[in-house]
C-alpha cells in the first residue's frame, strides 16, 4: 500500500475523530489494506482523509451524531478512469473494487483509530448501510456537464475528491416529466420531502445524483449545472401555508421559504444512461455550524 504514495510512513496526517488519535501514513495504509484497497487507490484515500479532517467537514460530529452520518466520497478527474472506478451502472452500489473500498478505508480509520464503535462514541440511533462507506466517480463523459470538482474550484484535468457527510440515500423516479421545467418540478417535490416535508429554512445539505436520462432532458433544453442548480433552489421554495405546522426552523413568516441554503445542494452526475431516476444523498446539519462538503486535489 505504501508503494501508492511518495509520503513517508511516519508522516503524521492528523487526528482521527471521535477520540482524536494520531494517524500516520502507515496507519492509513494498514486500514486501506483492511478495506481492500489497491496501492493505486491510496492517493485517493489520502486526499479524502485530508478533506475529512478539515474542520469545515466536522468529522467528529458526523461520527458521533445520533443521526447516524457517514462519509460519501465523490471522485473526479483522470484518476477515476485510471484506477477503474465506476460512474455508470450501479455506481452507488456494489461490484467495483475502488468504489467499494476507498470510503471503507476512512470508515475503518474512525473505528480502529477514532474509536467510533456503535453504542460507544458512535451514538447513531439507526445508522445506515452507507456507513460502511460510499464512494463513486462522477460521470464526466459529456463536456456539457461541468464536473463537481470544477464547480468547486479545481482546475480542469486535475483529479480531486469531495467528501460529503450523509445519512443514507433514497431513489426517486418519475416517468412523466418530459421537459426541463417539469423535471425540475418533479425533483423539487422529492427534495422537499427529504429529511421531512415540513423541514424548511436551510440548515441541511443534500446531494442530488442525476442519471443519464435526467441529464439528457436538461441538456437537450440547453440547461447546464448552474441553471439546474438555480432552478432547483427556486423550485424548492414553498409558502408558509404549505409548511404551516411543524417547521423545525422558523423563517420568521417569510412568504417564500427555501428548503436549502444555496451551498447545501450538491449536484452530481452518475448512473447508467437507461432509467429515469435520481438519487438523493441525505446530508447532515450544514453550513458553518454543521458539516460542509470539502474538496481536495489528489496529489499522486
Amino acid at each position, binding site marked *: 500500500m505504501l508503494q501508492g504514495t511518495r509520503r513517508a510512513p511516519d508522516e503524521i496526517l492528523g487526528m482521527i475523530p471521535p477520540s482524536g488519535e494520531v494517524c500516520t501514513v502507515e496507519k492509513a495504509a*494498514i486500514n486501506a489494506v483492511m478495506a481492500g484497497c489497491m496501492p493505486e487507490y491510496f492517493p485517493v484515500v489520502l486526499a479524502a482523509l485530508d478533506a475529512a479532517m478539515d*474542520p469545515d467537514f466536522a468529522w467528529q460530529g458526523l461520527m458521533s451524531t445520533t443521526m447516524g452520518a457517514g462519509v460519501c466520497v465523490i471522485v473526479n478527474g483522470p484518476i477515476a478512469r485510471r484506477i477503474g472506478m465506476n460512474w455508470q451502472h450501479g455506481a452507488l452500489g456494489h461490484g467495483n473494487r475502488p468504489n467499494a473500498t476507498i470510503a471503507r478505508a476512512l470508515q475503518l480509520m474512525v473505528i480502529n483509530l477514532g474509536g467510533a464503535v456503535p453504542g460507544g462514541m458512535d451514538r447513531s440511533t439507526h445508522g445506515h448501510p452507507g456507513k460502511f462507506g460510499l464512494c463513486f466517480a462522477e460521470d464526466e463523459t459529456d463536456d456539457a456537464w461541468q464536473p463537481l470538482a470544477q464547480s468547486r474550484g479545481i482546475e480542469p484535468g486535475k483529479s480531486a475528491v469531495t467528501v460529503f457527510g450523509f445519512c443514507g440515500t433514497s431513489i426517486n423516479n418519475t416517468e412523466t416529466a418530459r421537459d426541463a421545467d417539469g423535471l425540475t418540478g418533479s425533483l423539487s417535490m422529492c427534495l422537499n420531502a427529504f429529511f421531512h416535508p415540513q423541514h424548511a429554512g436551510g440548515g441541511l445539505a443534500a446531494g442530488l445524483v442525476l442519471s443519464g436520462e435526467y441529464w439528457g432532458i436538461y441538456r437537450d433544453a440547453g440547461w447546464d449545472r448552474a441553471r439546474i442548480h438555480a432552478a432547483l433552489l427556486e423550485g424548492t421554495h414553498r409558502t408558509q401555508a404549505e409548511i404551516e405546522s411543524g417547521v423545525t426552523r422558523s423563517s420568521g413568516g417569510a412568504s417564500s421559504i427555501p428548503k436549502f441554503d444555496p451551498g447545501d445542494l450538491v449536484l452530481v452526475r452518475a448512473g447508467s444512461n437507461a432509467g429515469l431516476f435520481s438519487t438523493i444523498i441525505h446530508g447532515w446539519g450544514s453550513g458553518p*455550524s454543521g458539516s460542509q462538503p470539502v474538496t481536495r486535489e489528489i496529489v499522486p
Partner: protein
Amino acid sequence: MTQSITMLDPTSEKTNAMRSRKAPPASLDGLTVGLLDISKDQGDHFLDRLEVLFGERGIKVERFAKPTYAKKAPDDVTASLAERCDVVVEALAD
C-alpha cells in the same frame, strides 16, 4: 517449511489513561454550577428552568454555550468551565 508473518496493528497502539470519576458533592451549598448549552434546539429552555430552580435554592449558576453542537467545545469554553465551576449540567438533546 516455516513462514514468517508480520502482523500490523490498525489502531493507535496506545491505551488511554483512565481517570476515576470525581465523586459527586454531598451538597451544592457554596458551589458554582455551570450550565452548558450545546446549541441544540430548545436546550436553552431546559437550562433556563434549571437556572430558576437553582436560584430558588440560593445556588450560584454560570451559563456557558458551545457555538454549535456539531463541533467540540472551543478550548476557552472548557477552560472556563474547569476554572469557574464545581459542577456542570450539560443540555445534550433537543
